[in-house]
């Protein structure tokens, strides 16, 4: 694709992409640390992760401001307009993912005083969710609608995994009431991860809009794009 005649504008758009990537990287790390703090009953890691959420929020504000500035100063059209409006939406989703990581840390802290072994494979679910998030952002940077579509398709896997964990955890609570506190916390974490997958899917849907100019939101996921 040709570059803008106005090089400064080109650089500003590249900077916006870079900010989104940095925010995405930070949020991805937040999910990893939150999950590790839960698995390792690591209160300090959980607290540090919660503390770092303000950096995520800072990116949210900065990216919004950058988008507004670009809209006001350059009156973007077509592809550039879709990039900027997509960025505005992506940053909102990423900020919410950051909040979910904080929620996972809070559940981890709750369980620190009464450690209980994990009854379900939350780390594997967390890895899959992080992969979805990473791929949705890769799709954003590479403007790859096919990769974005594969993220959308992955969401069903996470939904199924959450439903399976829900059934398993309820079963364990029923048979062993001493597990109720831990299992409830794990159930919450499963729900948070499922929500993160939804946000990754939102991002992927917006990437498809950005690349193709076609909205697939609130529709069943198409086989191809």
């Amino acid at each position, binding site marked *: *694709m*040709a*570059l*803008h*005649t*106005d090089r400064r*504008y080109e650089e500003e758009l590249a900077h916006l992409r870079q900010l989104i990537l940095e925010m995405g990287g930070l949020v991805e790390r937040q999910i990893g640390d939150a999950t590790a703090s839960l698995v390792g009953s690591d209160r300090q890691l959980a607290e540090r992760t919660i503390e770092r959420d303000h950096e995520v929020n800072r990116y949210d504000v900065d990216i919004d401001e950058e988008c507004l500035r670009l809209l006001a100063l350059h*009156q*973007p*059209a*077509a*592809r*550039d*307009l*879709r990039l900027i409006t997509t960025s505005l939406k992506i940053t909102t989703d990423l900020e919410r993912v950051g909040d979910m990581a904080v929620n996972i840390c809070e559940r981890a802290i709750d369980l620190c005083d009464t450690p209980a072994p994990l009854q379900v494979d939350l780390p594997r679910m967390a890895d899959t969710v992080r992969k979805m998030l990473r791929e949705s952002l890769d799709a954003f940077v590479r403007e790859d609608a096919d990769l974005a579509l594969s993220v959308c398709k992955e969401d069903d896997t996470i939904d199924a995994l959450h439903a399976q964990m829900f059934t398993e955890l309820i079963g364990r609570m029923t048979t062993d009431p001493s597990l109720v506190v831990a299992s409830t916390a794990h159930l919450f974490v499963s729900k948070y991860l499922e929500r993160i997958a939804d946000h990754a899917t939102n991002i992927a849907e917006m990437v498809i809009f950005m690349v193709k*100019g076609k909205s697939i939101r609130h529709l069943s996921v198409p086989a191809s794009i």
Partner: protein
Amino acid sequence: MGRGLANTADERRRDQRTTTSIQADGPGRGGEAQTAGVRVKIEARGVDFFYGATQALYGVSLAAGTCQVTALIGPSGCGKSTFLRLINRMNDLIPGTRLQGEILLDGEDIYDSKVDVVDLRRRVGMVFQRSNPFPKSIYENVAYGPRVHGVRDKATLDEIVETTLRRSALWEEVKDRLGSSALSLSGGQQQRLCIARALAVEPEVLLMDEPASALDPLATAKIEELIHELKERYTIIIVTHNMQQAARVSDMTAYFYLGRLVEYGATAKIFTNPSCQETEDYITGRFG
């Protein structure tokens, strides 16, 4: 409130329309939904145009709808002004020019030998980049055209002058000094006077060649507001280098490049998701 008024105007226009559709030409086919049911006012069919040996337009086919604003955009030298001037045969005045293909006004070829060019230019008015009022009074500028076309009665002329100046949103600013020289008006007022002068002979189509490019933002906004009002009655075709202006005022946009019509479609589609890479590069500033 605004929505209600718009609906009423839409309904009024719809009554006047036939069910002919405008087909977007070339890859930009986003216009059908917006223009379905709009009657075609101007239609170019396979237009080639030559200045001597130099070909300026290549096979341009484009249909402009009644009571719609069609914007022609593209870099300098792309042929958009040439195309605009063909619609009221202004290029006839340039020696050595030649046209192939057809341009139809209400289905009739305007280049047919039977066509009276003076009458054509009454039906298809034109406003230029630089305001060019006659060095006469404001009143005389507007009354000139109707007089040429035979209106002599003073009361009728008075009425035409007032109605036309109201329609061009100038009446309130000049009603107390109609006898003053038109050259005493500001640039923006002079341009609106030129629009009034074009409207005074009751045209059906208004061609505008960068009508606001020499005006400040406020005067530009007034011209754009005026275009919105005028499209209730007139078919407007506007050439502009100001991309945002094209986006703001037009229903349909045509992108020209090197004498060819690259893409033609609904303005909202062209500016959010054009079909052609060349159009996208131009409107996003990735050009040259």
